[in-house]
């Protein structure tokens, strides 16, 4: 898949890159990070112009993210009908409104594997669109210009850079999952402990 996409970028340039990152932002599992780093290298080699390419890619990926936010937003009504009275749902909404900005920002470039679910949750939980847009734009700018910049810096060695970054993204996701598991575990353990103390056991 990535080989085919790379050939198309060489042949048709920035518009194809825009289409790829747009579709990727809607949840189709494209190797987005690899493509962005490669595009940076192609800019260095003179096949693409960095400013036009960067602008097209950034606009496309932000549009894709906004669309997946909108999908979540329009799914809000049926979800609310189901869970409106649920205490867990209210807690989850409050929690996302508190930490959502950071989640949106970090999942744009560091834990890209869960970017689409975060967009959908942002839309469903009623996270303010203006805030979503700002955090999304900032995060995606780092993804496009930061990762693309690494491709530009390392030129034809971009494959090695991409390999390191994609593995670091997986490692970060693992650390986040482990962290959530440990945090829930400690909370559970504390709750049990305080119940025991209260009952005098």
């Amino acid at each position, binding site marked *: 898949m990535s080989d085919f996409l790379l050939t198309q970028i060489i042949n048709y340039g920035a518009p194809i890159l825009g289409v790829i990152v747009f579709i990727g932002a809607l949840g189709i599992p494209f190797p987005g990070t690899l493509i962005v780093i490669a595009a940076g290298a192609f800019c260095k080699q003179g096949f693409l112009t960095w400013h036009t390419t960067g602008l097209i890619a950034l606009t496309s990926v932000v549009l894709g993210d906004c669309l997946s936010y909108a999908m979540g937003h329009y799914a809000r009504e049926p979800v609310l009908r189901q869970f409106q009275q649920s205490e867990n749902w209210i807690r989850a909404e409050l929690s996302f409104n508190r930490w959502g900005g950071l989640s949106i920002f970090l999942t744009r470039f560091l834990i890209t594997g869960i970017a689409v679910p975060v967009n959908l949750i942002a839309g469903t939980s009623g996270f303010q669109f203006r805030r979503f847009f700002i955090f999304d734009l900032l995060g995606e700018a780092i993804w496009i210009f930061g990762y693309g910049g690494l491709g530009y810096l390392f030129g034809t060695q971009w494959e090695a850079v991409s390999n390191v970054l994609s593995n670091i993204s*997986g490692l970060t996701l693992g650390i*986040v999952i482990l962290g959530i598991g440990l945090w829930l575990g400690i909370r*559970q353990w504390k709750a049990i402990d305080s119940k025991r103390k209260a009952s005098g056991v």
Partner: protein
Amino acid sequence: MTRTRKRALIIGLIVLGILFAGFFGYRSLLAFSKFRGQPPGPPIAVKPDQAIETDVDLIRDWMTVPYIAKTYGVSPGFLFEALGIPPRGNEEKSLAQLNEEFSPKSPGIILEVVRIAIQARQSIPTGETPKPRLPLPTTP
């Protein structure tokens, strides 16, 4: 959520987290050790026919002939001639596609011929006329 389900979720998250972190941590170390010591790519070519890259091991089969030609500072015509393939209609095809079309019984041969042709070109001192033609093995 019942206590048993909660406990199962917590254990599941911890196990999944350890597996993910372990697997990608190991791969990150391997990738980083490979990457370390690799210098940043060569500077941008000044003249249009100047090579951007000289290492032929970096040629991949998703690349097209014009892309390789520009990267390695040779003319696309030179590479097409070396391959014995007409340029017309084949400029947007990757080496893998060309291989499938023109030499389906010898996988990887197009990539190899391109590498050899560029190496041959690099070894020729400036001023001499290169002899690029490296005929492909004929398929019965």
